[in-house]
């Protein structure tokens, strides 16, 4: 496909504290400030699309893309309901949603747009869009994270996002909503005493942020399985956001990376990072796996294992 214009990428956490209780701790406040910085960057850019990949929107039937022109509801988080409600009304670029679906399908993925009144948009997408684009100045789109998808499928999904952005000549900001380490405390805590759950999680988070800071996004993508094994609670099959983000942004290490904040969110690692495409690469890929262009479904290991 031709070159996509992605102005920059943002990696940010899904937890609601920066939106609902930024005053409750210094850390939440710093994350809120970092979101604010990103909001201004978007405002000052020529972006005409914000594309969100959210790890808190799981799907099963392929890849779901929000296609309602003005989704509106009052959302409440499953765990943090006591922090308050999140009323939202977003402006979705439905033409882009359709194009994205088409691009995903043309690369072999099962995909559909969803456009239903009252569809439950997830906490992570709401936090990101409310803080990054509060007046809906720029149309947005949101894509789910399929529960069963692994590397090939996720990378192909990232490439199809890139295809769709190029095909429509968009100037896009790509937003990935995900924690770093995602183990939270299993008890209620005083927010003022929030900290990263363990020293190991903290060390790994800092290692990831070092890569982000050096703009080494594709290297992070290559390290995704290792990150998943080390600091991700095993509730889904893989740490997919790095795969998707790198594939969507062009699979290289040529970015200026800025870590705007790194703080604990009920024990998990929350970071706001900006990656802006630049000239010149930092570092080589750590190791290489298949670079899949078209998704042909799961490999039938039971059928072909005897060969």
């Amino acid at each position, binding site marked *: 496909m031709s070159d996509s214009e992605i102005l920059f990428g943002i990696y940010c956490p899904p937890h609601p504290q920066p939106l609902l209780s930024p005053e409750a701790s210094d850390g939440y406040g710093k994350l809120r400030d970092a979101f604010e910085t990103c909001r201004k960057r978007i405002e000052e850019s020529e972006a005409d699309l914000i594309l969100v990949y959210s790890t808190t*929107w799981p799907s099963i039937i392929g890849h779901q893309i929000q296609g309602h022109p003005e989704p509106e509801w009052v959302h409440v988080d*499953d765990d943090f*309901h006591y922090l308050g*409600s999140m009323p939202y009304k977003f402006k979705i670029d439905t033409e882009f949603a359709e194009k994205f679906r088409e691009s995903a399908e043309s690369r072999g993925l099962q995909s559909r747009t*969803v456009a239903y009144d009252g*569809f439950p948009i997830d906490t992570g997408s709401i936090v990101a869009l409310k803080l990054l684009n509060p007046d809906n100045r720029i149309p947005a789109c949101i894509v789910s994270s399929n529960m069963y998808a692994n590397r090939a499928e996720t990378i192909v999904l990232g490439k199809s996002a890139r295809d769709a952005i190029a095909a429509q000549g968009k100037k896009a900001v790509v937003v990935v909503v995900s924690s770093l380490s995602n183990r939270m405390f299993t*008890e*209620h805590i005083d927010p003022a005493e929030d900290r990263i759950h363990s020293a190991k999680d903290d060390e790994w988070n800092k290692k990831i942020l070092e890569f982000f800071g050096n703009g080494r996004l594709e290297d992070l993508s290559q390290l995704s399985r290792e990150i998943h094994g080390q600091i991700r609670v095993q509730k889904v099959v893989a740490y997919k956001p790095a795969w998707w983000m790198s594939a969507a942004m062009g699979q290289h290490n040529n970015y200026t990376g800025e870590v705007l904040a790194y703080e604990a969110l009920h024990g998990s690692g929350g970071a706001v990072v900006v990656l802006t495409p630049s000239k010149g690469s930092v570092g080589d890929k750590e190791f290489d796996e298949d670079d899949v262009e078209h998704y042909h479904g799961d490999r039938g290991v039971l059928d072909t294992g005897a060969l």
Partner: protein
Amino acid sequence: MAKGEIVLGCLAPHPPHVVYAENPEQNEAFAEGGWETLRWGYNRLARKLKSIDYDAMVIFTPHWQTYIGTHFLGLPKFKSKSVDPVFPNLFRFNYDISVDVELAEKMCEVAGESGIVTKMMRNPDFRIDYGTITSCHMLNPEWDKPLVTISSNRNAHYYSPEVMNEQASALGIACSKAIEESGKKVVLISSHSLSHRHFVTESPLPEDMSREHIYNHSQYVWDMKLVDLMRDGKMKEVIDIMPEFTEQTIAETEAGGLTWMMAAMGYPEYPAEIYGYQSVIGTGNLIAAWDPIEATREIVL
């Protein structure tokens, strides 16, 4: 005050497909039918429930997932629309439910006293999950009994299915104590499928039953193993193999529902009533009930 008691325990799977196929007026989507084996089983169990005297339904749901303790619905009324995030094409249900807040608070209190991290949910904007709605609608389409919904703390994600089993058992024992102290007659509902691998594609007509089958034979064999043990009244054995079953079939028992219900009911040694087994988008779904009273216990299927 007489001691409260559990009058029936129900394993009630919640694929939204069964509500969709029933075409209740509350659901916006329209179906040409489908999944009759499950629906007719549910209809039969709903008729049995009509013959039982009870005050409230207490349901443990995998689709209110909490990581910071176990949460309980804590307001008397919830009225809104529940849209399934995974199958929004099938399930957009307008609900109006009543909660037995007194019973929920009692459970929260007793669970807290036994060392379980708990929280009452008192945000009026909170949306009721489709697991609660599907199971409760199929068991009581008149919606004439108050509910208590209990969230599922995801111990299997954070630790292991073994830890889930321990914690869900502790919660079950605490809930049964709370029910006794409440003086109420309660129906317990464990809302989930057994084996839980889904197809990731859907046929153009979701209710096209020519396309419906279990994801693979291994899932089926495991599901049948559990059904046999249930028929034989070996519920302690079912719970003992739960970690293995859950891992092998990525079962929805991972949320802890069946373990919670069986612990609350003292691991029945009498046969379960079997109402139906059918796959929904590849997952294995069983409807079963445990009736503590021998005189009313039936061999259904």
